[in-house]
């Protein structure tokens, strides 16, 4: 019972789990922008496979007791590409689902809005830059809005494969999956259409805003993120 309670506490404290987390919404909740079928396969097959493969790889090792973030960072540091790919993709997908919402869209609130305007000039300019990052990620990759703790500012970046900006010391605030499996059933080659729908109708700005607040207060309190 104690172990169970401890695990429950750890799972609250840990930002991301090492089990396949459930989708934050029903599989059909993002229709018509992302289809039920896409979410079933993207979450139930792709994301699940990354988690299972990672767990197989860390089974019986010290990494089993580490958090998902720690595993990602350790794998990156050690140049363990196979483990990195699966751990980072596990992290990336969990984050991605939360970046979307059936009530998504609209725009950023408060401080996030200010910082976006400060970094990009306007919300529209941010959307253009973020969309361009998504369009120009050649092959499989991700577009990110990140917070730079040192500069106290936001920027847009992109990564390839399983890449995650936390390995560069940046804090992910928002992500968008542009691997073809994220949109191919719904949009085929028209990645631009998927990106437009994501930006207009899907982004969970409350979650993005929370991510920023956490990062900023960690910076203010000098905490190690």
């Amino acid at each position: 019972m104690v172990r169970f309670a401890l695990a429950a506490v750890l799972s609250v404290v840990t930002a991301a789990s090492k089990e396949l987390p459930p989708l934050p919404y029903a599989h059909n909740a993002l229709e018509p922008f992302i289809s039920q079928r896409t979410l079933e396969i993207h979450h139930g097959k792709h994301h699940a496979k990354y988690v299972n493969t990672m767990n197989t790889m860390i089974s019986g090792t010290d990494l089993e007791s580490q958090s998902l973030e720690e595993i990602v960072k350790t794998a990156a540091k050690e140049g363990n590409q196979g483990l990195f790919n699966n751990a980072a993709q596990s992290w990336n997908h969990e984050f991605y689902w939360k970046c979307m919402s059936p009530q998504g869209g609209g725009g950023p609130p408060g401080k996030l809005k200010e910082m976006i305007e400060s970094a990009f000039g306007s919300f529209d300019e941010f959307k253009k830059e973020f969309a361009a990052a998504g369009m120009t990620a050649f092959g499989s990759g991700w577009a990110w809005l990140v917070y730079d703790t040192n500069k106290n500012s936001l920027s847009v970046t992109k990564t390839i494969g399983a890449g995650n900006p936390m390995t560069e010391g940046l804090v992910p605030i928002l992500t968008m999956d542009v691997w073809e499996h994220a949109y191919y059933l719904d949009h085929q080659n028209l990645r631009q259409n998927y990106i437009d729908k994501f930006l207009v109708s899907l982004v969970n700005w409350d979650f993005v805003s929370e991510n920023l607040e956490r990062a900023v207060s960690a910076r203010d309190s000098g905490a190690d993120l």
Partner: protein
Amino acid sequence: MTKLSLAVAALLAGSAAAWSTPMKMKADTGVNSRRNILQKGAALATAAAIPTAAANAYSVPDLLYPFEALEPYIDAPTMKIHHDKHHGTYVANINKATEGKDPVPILDLMADALEAGPGVRNSGGGHYNHAFFWDEMAPPDKAKKTKPSEQLEGLINKSFGSMDEMKAKFEAQAAPGAVFGSGWVWVCVNEAGDELKLVGTPNQDNPLMKGVCDEVMYPILGLDVWEHAYYLKYQNRRPEYVSNWWNVVDWDKVSENCAYAVENHCGVTVRD
């Protein structure tokens, strides 16, 4: 491409169209079709007495079979979108990247593609790879009648042990853990021409490009494992796509590729 080889290519394209069934959906040749550009270029040249720069325009080669011909192993919608849209985009972009430059076969851009920059590397590579890919495949009924030449069989046995072993290693290299994300798997003739090598490359890179593999090598067989190559039919089931793919491989063409690469120590040309 010289005017003479363009004329030959146009003849070949014309006769290929004659082989296709009435149901064939014509490739979307559009603005970038060589015929279109030649005509426009010729008109411009006549009008303004300037040399036509149009001759370097690449175009998507028509498939040698209808879109549905590789069913059930590769589905018709995939073939159509893959050929018309994905390959079409690479062609549009390589044309942009090479605008104003002297016309050369796309093969000639491969060796120095990394140095030439992302435009040539990604879109030039994309054009070469896909043009190569379409022509090494054939409808299943035709494919099953093809077989490796003695030369190819000898090299396969020498390099991998047997055809079955080659296929097993190829499938392992094509697995999502091996080529992670987007890329291709290739069987190549080495520089010396005495061995076959198996390699995976990322994105639209290929072994012809200096700096991509340990040594430059000459592809004779290649498989696209970008998700767009299989997602509509197979979704996440890439291994099933790969193991089904053998049913549409034209081993006669692969044997020709092999003979050419061994004899000439260079990559095969493609219809570009």
